């Protein structure tokens, strides 16, 4: 269960960007989570909502986007989105959609990316 440490790292990243941009409030935070990470988006969101209390992010909306798995197949050279199965365990097993091979290079799907934030700041031009 490493959602808490990841949540803290996300908040630190957002706070850093918010301060650099002189934000007075953070309205929205968009995070991308790869389907292949061991992070549970629901748990992550719950923990984020808890730890942002009392911070600049307190009233922000947290949006989590899931990133599908992309592969390069070592057997048939297929490049693109992988077939994923394994819903029995809520885990993703990656298979090449072309040849069914499992000898794959994962090119996407392991992200925990703080993509962007929407902030409110003083309009210096006004």
């Amino acid at each position, binding site marked *: *269960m*490493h959602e*808490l*440490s*990841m949540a803290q*790292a*996300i908040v630190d*990243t*957002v706070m850093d*960007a*918010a301060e650099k*941009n002189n*934000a*007075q409030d953070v*309205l929205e935070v968009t995070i991308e989570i*790869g389907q*292949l*990470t*061991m*992070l549970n988006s629901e748990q992550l969101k719950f923990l984020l909502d808890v730890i942002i209390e009392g911070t600049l992010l307190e009233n922000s909306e947290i949006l989590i986007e899931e990133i599908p798995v992309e592969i390069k197949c070592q057997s048939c050279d297929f490049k693109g989105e992988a077939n994923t199965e*394994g819903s029995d*365990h809520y*885990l*993703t*097993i*990656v298979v090449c959609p072309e040849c069914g091979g*499992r*000898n794959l290079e994962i090119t996407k799907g*392991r*992200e*925990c*990316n*703080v*993509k*962007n*934030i*929407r*902030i*409110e*700041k*003083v*309009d210096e031009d*006004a």
Partner: protein
Amino acid sequence: MHKIADVEIQHDIMVANRKLARRNQRIMDQNGVFSVDVLGAIGSGKTSLIETLIDHLEHKVGVIAGDVISKYDAGRFESHHVPVVGLNTGKECHLDAHLVKHALEELPLENIDLLFIENVGNLICPVDFDLGSHLRMVVISVSEGDDTVEKHPLIFQDADLVVINKIDIADAVGASVEKMVDDVKKLNPDVQVITSSLKTGKGLDEILAAIESYMS
């Protein structure tokens, strides 16, 4: 007046860990250190296996002992007269590249050519965290149940070497070793799977040979 602004961040926390992992590997390479990340279930025999390997390998071994409380395992390794750094993860369920970076700073790398990094007993969380090791060895045992592999596919898909331990008690716990081997092969067709019993010594020569071949 206030205005609303969108700020692009694009900071991937996983990438940050992977960058640190690559740096760890560079530091080890510069010092001629080959490292093995030893992952696996709680009680599967990771510590005992590393202890046995220390006694049988002709290398200058060092160990990073990662655990929620690391002093117990660290103490076991110290009794084999090798340099050890204990890493307490506290409430965390895995080692990460940042913790390993600090452990590397404490170890006499010039006197080590094989470094074992014992991860926290866990088949889930360590998957996300590359440490910069050269080899990922996953250790499980029959006593976790013969459905362990199919329940934790990702760690086996990422493994370079898989050890299925305690096969001497497979019948007693009603586990099929063949099923466990087949399940690993289904997920990762090219990976070497070694069935072992540290108690009887079965499989030890194969594990020693596998590590030697990766090092050469």
